[in-house]
């Protein structure tokens, strides 16, 4: 990993006495490799390296007895800084329900995360209704229904013929009437390049004015994470991101890249298949994970 690699590099650099800018450039090459290996977007890496090399040529590093450690510190704090901005708490509605829409690509974990979020809020004393607004995927509403039952949270599935927008509109009326604290909407997977399905989401948002539109992203997503997030953000002005499947060994550079490019915060992370496997996002922990 980068930390042990740097220990080796800087050990032999220390023997030379003072560091010079060329040594820093060599360290930056290794940082670039580590970030690319972690699926940080190519153009984001370029920008990060530019910022880091400036800081690394300062005298804290050049005159330090442990320059390797100093550089690692700079990298970590730079990555943490990128992921720290924005409101990482949920935006609440002044009157119930607070409406949260979950959107994202196929298979990233929306349905599971919808139930996880309901459970998380329940633990905090809030009531939720889950909405199965995916009439396309075979057995999608049954899937959410079963998850809801496991945690004793009601699931609205609407009529069989309802379009996703219709289902969501009726669910809002019911949630307002029953005064649920939260209305959590599970939508179907889609491609960001499918104009029809992206328009469906835009219409849905227009109809129910959610307090949060959270983009669910698989932590193992590669270089396209930036384009995916950009498109969802342009069409829906998303309010945040949930990064899933962080219980794997995926480094999660997609999360950093998305933060950097669209400036929306990561609000939660998925760390397993169980309904309690949802936790808050900690930028510093993520930075260490990405560096490896």
């Amino acid at each position, binding site marked *: 990993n980068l930390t042990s690699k740097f220990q080796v590099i800087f050990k032999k650099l220390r023997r030379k006495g003072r560091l010079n800018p060329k040594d820093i450039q060599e360290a930056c090459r290794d940082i670039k490799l580590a970030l690319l290996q972690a*699926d940080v*977007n190519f153009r984001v890496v370029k920008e990060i390296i530019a910022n880091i090399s400036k800081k690394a040529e300062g005298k804290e590093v050049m005159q330090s007895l442990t320059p390797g450690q100093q550089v690692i510190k700079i990298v970590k704090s730079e990555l943490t800084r990128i992921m720290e901005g924005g409101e990482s708490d949920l935006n609440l509605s002044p009157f119930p329900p607070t409406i949260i829409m979950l959107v994202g690509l196929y298979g990233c974990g929306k349905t599971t995360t919808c139930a996880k979020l309901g459970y998380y809020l329940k633990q905090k004393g809030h009531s939720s209704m889950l909405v199965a607004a995916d009439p396309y995927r075979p057995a999608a509403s049954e899937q959410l229904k079963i998850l809801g039952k496991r945690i004793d949270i009601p699931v609205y599935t609407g009529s069989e013929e309802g379009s996703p927008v219709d289902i969501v509109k009726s669910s809002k009326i019911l949630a307002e009437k029953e005064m649920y604290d939260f209305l959590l909407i599970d939508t179907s997977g889609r*491609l*960001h390049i499918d104009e029809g399905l992206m328009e469906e989401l835009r219409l849905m948002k227009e109809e129910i004015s959610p307090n949060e539109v959270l983009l669910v992203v698989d932590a193992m997503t590669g270089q*396209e*994470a930036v384009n995916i997030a950009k498109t969802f953000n342009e069409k829906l002005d998303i309010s945040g991101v949930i990064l899933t*499947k962080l219980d794997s*060994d995926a*480094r999660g550079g997609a999360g950093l890249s998305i933060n950097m490019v669209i400036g929306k915060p990561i609000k939660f992370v998925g760390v397993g298949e169980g309904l309690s496997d949802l936790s808050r996002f900690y930028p510093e922990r993520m930075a260490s994970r990405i560096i490896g």
Partner: protein
Amino acid sequence: IFVNKGISQRLISEVEERLILADVGIDTTSKIIDRLKDIQHKITPGNEQQVLDLLKHIVYEILRDGNFHLNLSQLPCVIMIIGVNGVGKTLTAAKLSKRFKDQGMSVLLVASDTFRASAITQLSLLAERAGVPLFKQKEGQDPSSVVYDALSLVNKRDIDVAIIDTSGRSHTNFNLIKELQKMRKVCERLIDGAPHEVLLVLDATTGQNAFSQAKVFRDNLKVTGLSLAKLDSSSKGGIVIAIFSELGIPVKLVGVGEGLDGLLTFSPRQFVEALFD
């Protein structure tokens, strides 16, 4: 201006960026660029189209010797569909079953995901849509026992292909890898030559972690091929180049959409064209 005689540094940087953005990965990208530099004396300075053609040729050469065919040399044929969570295993299993059925073979889909909510219902609906029979048992049952009973049935009936859909799992979960190993042993015991194919489904939008997935599944289970799902997305799936050149696992199938007909046989030529598209 023109370093390296044939290719400018600017062009090399552009090539590097394009390959990395396609998830080819930094190591494989460096190897491809080194190969390009080796043959740059053939390049007319400034001829960018020529560079592109040479790049396509280099990548094609890496991929061309893969075995892209499914092993149907021995019937009944048993195919295991494995992979991490949400990549497209269940839909791929259904697509593959329809392909064989359309070719006139008798197919049995096996629902061995007894864990995830609605997994069996999902596959039942897809099997019905594909017009293929489904073998299923109780939720919560040991998946190995489902495989055992399914393959015992295959031995009794005149079934040509059994396609076993498995539950998603993280390759980092030791117990779930062991569970797959146990299922594989059941296949070996019950049917001659089984499993004839162990197809690892990868999501085309996945980055470098796909390599780690492939390595772990290969080391623990012997993987015969990849099925690259969701290639209809904007991702290029470039990681499969490294997976073939370093792990020896070829792509055999490509998933291109939610419909049951959205399954293609891997073509290195088409893949290379799309990579540089």
